[in-house]
């Protein structure tokens, strides 16, 4: 599949879910329970395709997992918690905009997002430096497990703190139609879908780290860990050097 086709496919899939969810929100007023159930199902699918595209912390998770070999359960924990924090930060923006400031969530989002993005980038650089230091310190450790990994919660916060624009759009839309409750639940289902995609990206990185070549070659094991840590530093630097311009929509 050519890249442009890939971009096109992502766009079309996102468009499909976006449109279908909007249509079902209008159908809720008919009084039937079916549209609400469809919204939840579609929100889950929207979350999956939304997070399969660029962003949502997949690169950070992959770099972190290469640097810090983790149990499979931790990979899923990281993936779903990132999605949850990503969604919660979006809901905070949406609710503040709608009920405290009386403006659209997108308007508030474009104000808070660039600085949040920069702060997140700076913290990712620090996390990466810490990983590089740790990997270097543990260079004699040649196989799993590698130390205690409470740092994964730091990764969750750093990757998730930037609000998800998709969740903001969905939940604000629900609020304007008077369906805040179903909007919030739909946002949660969307986060489950995103969590699945982020976890799959994490599993991919984990499978590299767990491959026979890496496990049986101590030097490779260390090199891959070091590579993952450097990737996290570079990712943070990339975020810092590419500030997000204020966007209208």
């Amino acid at each position: 599949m050519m890249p442009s086709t890939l971009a096109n496919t992502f766009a079309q899939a996102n468009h499909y879910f976006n449109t279908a969810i909007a249509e079902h929100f209008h159908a809720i007023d008919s009084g039937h329970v079916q549209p609400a159930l469809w919204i939840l199902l579609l929100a889950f699918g929207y979350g999956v395709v939304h997070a399969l595209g660029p962003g949502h912390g997949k690169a950070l998770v992959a770099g972190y997992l290469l640097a810090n070999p983790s149990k499979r359960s931790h990979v899923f924990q990281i993936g779903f918690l990132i999605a949850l924090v990503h969604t919660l930060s979006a809901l905070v923006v949406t609710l503040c905009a709608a009920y405290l400031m009386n403006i659209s969530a997108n308007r508030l989002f474009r104000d808070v997002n660039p600085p949040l993005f920069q702060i997140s980038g700076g913290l990712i650089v620090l996390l990466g430096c810490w990983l590089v230091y740790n990997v270097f310190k543990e260079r004699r450790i040649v196989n799993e497990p590698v130390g205690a990994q409470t740092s994964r919660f730091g990764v969750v916060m750093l990757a998730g703190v930037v609000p998800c624009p998709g969740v903001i759009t969905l939940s604000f839309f629900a609020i304007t139609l008077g369906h805040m409750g179903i909007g919030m639940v739909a946002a949660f289902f969307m986060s489950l879908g995103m969590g699945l995609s982020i976890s799959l990206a994490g599993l991919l990185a984990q499978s590299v780290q767990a491959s026979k070549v890496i496990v049986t070659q101590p030097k490779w094991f260390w090199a891959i860990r070091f590579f993952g840590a450097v990737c996290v530093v570079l990712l943070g630097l990339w975020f810092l050097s590419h500030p997000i311009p204020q966007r209208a929509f």
Partner: protein
Amino acid sequence: MLKICVCLLFYACSALAHPHTFITVSLELNETELKVRWLFDEMTSQSLLEDFDTDRNGIFSPKETEAFKKEVFNDLKQFSFFTHLKVANKSVPLKPTQLFLWRENNAFGVEFHVDLKPYVHQKKSIGFWDESFLCALSLEKEQIRTSLPYTLKEVDNAYYYGYLLEFL
């Protein structure tokens, strides 16, 4: 191969992109003027209507239009208003001359005009895309009204896609 690498790198690194705004583009053009119309998806429309149709009457007063221009439209200059004009194979900065807003059912519409008089009888092409891929633009032949001969093709730009209108 390079394109695939760029694509993967972008998909891995970019923080926000993946379109969450969908714009249907329609065009009307002749030798001297280009009229571009955008119709937004319903979710994005809802928040734009909330912000700029302040009296909720579905009609945009000059004051409301000016607010949209100041807060939203002018910032799109850095993205060339998602409309990439080339004259004699050279990129030309886009300078919209007029701006209109409207509501069509639940959708928010934007129309802006571009003066093409300085480029009459020169070979032109117009691309429609958002390089940051936050917005996905769609353009079909049925949405183009012109008497000028042209070709429309999809453009492969590595990590985003778009459409290119070339005049013969």
